[in-house]
């Protein structure tokens, strides 16, 4: 990617983030939905259900529930990132952009990444409160997990959101296509988060982070390369 490609990517990202910041409605709705999901899990599982080892079931399941909530809200985020343009014909303009299509991919990716991290920054304290988690001791490790996992999610999510932008049953097909691809990220994120929050006696955290890193690398490479085929037509 050349310098002008980087500038193009930045332009796309900046435009998206500016739009998002001005019309906060979508971000607020998405965050509210994610928080509500966390809240609903509390009712579904029950705060009094006994866990196997120490602590209640809800506390033990907390990392998994958190990532499910992020997954669901994240689908809304990436879907939206192309819908605004699809509705108003902006996709034609994007298609006509000269230069490497990868720039558009990375620009959208960056915008989605920022939105999702903002979502997670709000969601983590909520999860900590609802599920009685102590975030402070493992915070750096947790931040690393959230960062890498969100990158993987955004990489795949941006790609599939662009792929399904014109499909009639987009709302259903996007999660249908996206979730199987994200299984490695979900597995690693939940495992690593649990280790970060509840202790890592056997030093497995590094292995999971390496898996996340490898998955991210693969996703970014394949999706960036394939993106030029997505925006045709």
């Amino acid at each position: 990617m050349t310098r002008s490609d980087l500038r193009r990517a930045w332009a796309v990202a900046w435009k998206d983030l500016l739009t998002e910041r001005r019309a906060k409605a979508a971000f607020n709705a998405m965050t509210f939905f994610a928080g509500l999901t966390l809240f609903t899990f509390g009712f579904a599982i029950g705060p009094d259900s006994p866990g196997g080892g120490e602590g209640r079931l809800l506390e033990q399941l907390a990392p998994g529930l958190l990532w499910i909530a992020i997954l669901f809200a994240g689908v809304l985020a990436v879907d939206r990132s192309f819908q605004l343009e699809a509705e108003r014909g902006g996709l034609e303009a994007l298609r006509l952009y000269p230069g490497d299509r990868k720039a558009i991919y990375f620009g959208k990716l960056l915008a989605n990444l920022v939105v999702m991290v903002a979502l997670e920054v709000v969601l983590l304290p909520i999860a900590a409160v609802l599920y009685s988690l102590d975030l402070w001791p493992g915070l750096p490790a947790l931040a690393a997990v959230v960062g890498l996992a969100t990158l993987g999610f955004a990489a795949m999510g941006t790609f599939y959101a662009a792929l399904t932008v014109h499909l009639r049953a987009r709302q259903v097909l996007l999660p249908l296509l996206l979730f199987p691809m994200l299984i490695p990220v979900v597995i690693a994120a939940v495992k690593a988060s649990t280790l970060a929050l509840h202790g890592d006696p056997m030093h497995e955290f590094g292995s999971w982070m390496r898996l996340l890193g490898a998955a991210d690398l693969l996703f970014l490479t394949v999706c960036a390369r394939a993106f030029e085929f997505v925006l045709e037509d």
Partner: protein
Amino acid sequence: MAQRLGIDRLGWLAGMLAIPALVFGLYLAVVWAPTDAMMGTVQRIMYVHFPSWIATAIAYLTAFVCSLSYLVRRRPTMDYLAHAGVEVGVVFNTTGLITGSIWGRPTWGVWWTWDPRLTTTALMLVVFLGYLAVRAFLEEPDARARISSLVAVVGFLNLPIVYYSVRWWRTLHQPQSSPSTVDPEIVVALRVMMIAFALIAAYLISRRYALAQLEGDRERMELQPEVQGG
């Protein structure tokens, strides 16, 4: 036209060979091969279960290669072949999962375990069902071919990562089961069944491809008056 005849002819050949192979294989599997000492007659499901996966692998690999080829060269025949591969693959994927589940129930006591291979193959099914779902919602042939090819390629490339992550997930605290030494007669029966299933898969793919070709031709003919008349 020449292309069509080539795959057609090979397909018919595979089909012709598949019948005796299957008959012979079933005889070997059900009658000739010895009963497994540990698992008993239930083990004989393996003769259908394992070859299903060979067929699945052949079909999905066809789909992957043809999807890749379509993205590069844009020849509709590659799209038809990829579609055929996915459909046949989905069928054998399902039979593999079902026979595995049936085998697992008396053997392990459960219909499902989250073991790496099982989980990965179930995920494979979901990915390629997604391929078929995407195709169902796109009427325009070029867009449909392009987008579904991308789904097939990216989905396929992700499978190794899925497998390894599930394996890590499941075996960090559990010992991996080791393969037992297998009676040579069982291996013979298994191999014949594998060949039979591979031939069946090739035959089915060629037939589905021929159908896809006909459907594609008809679609193009339907679209043409719309383009010319308008």
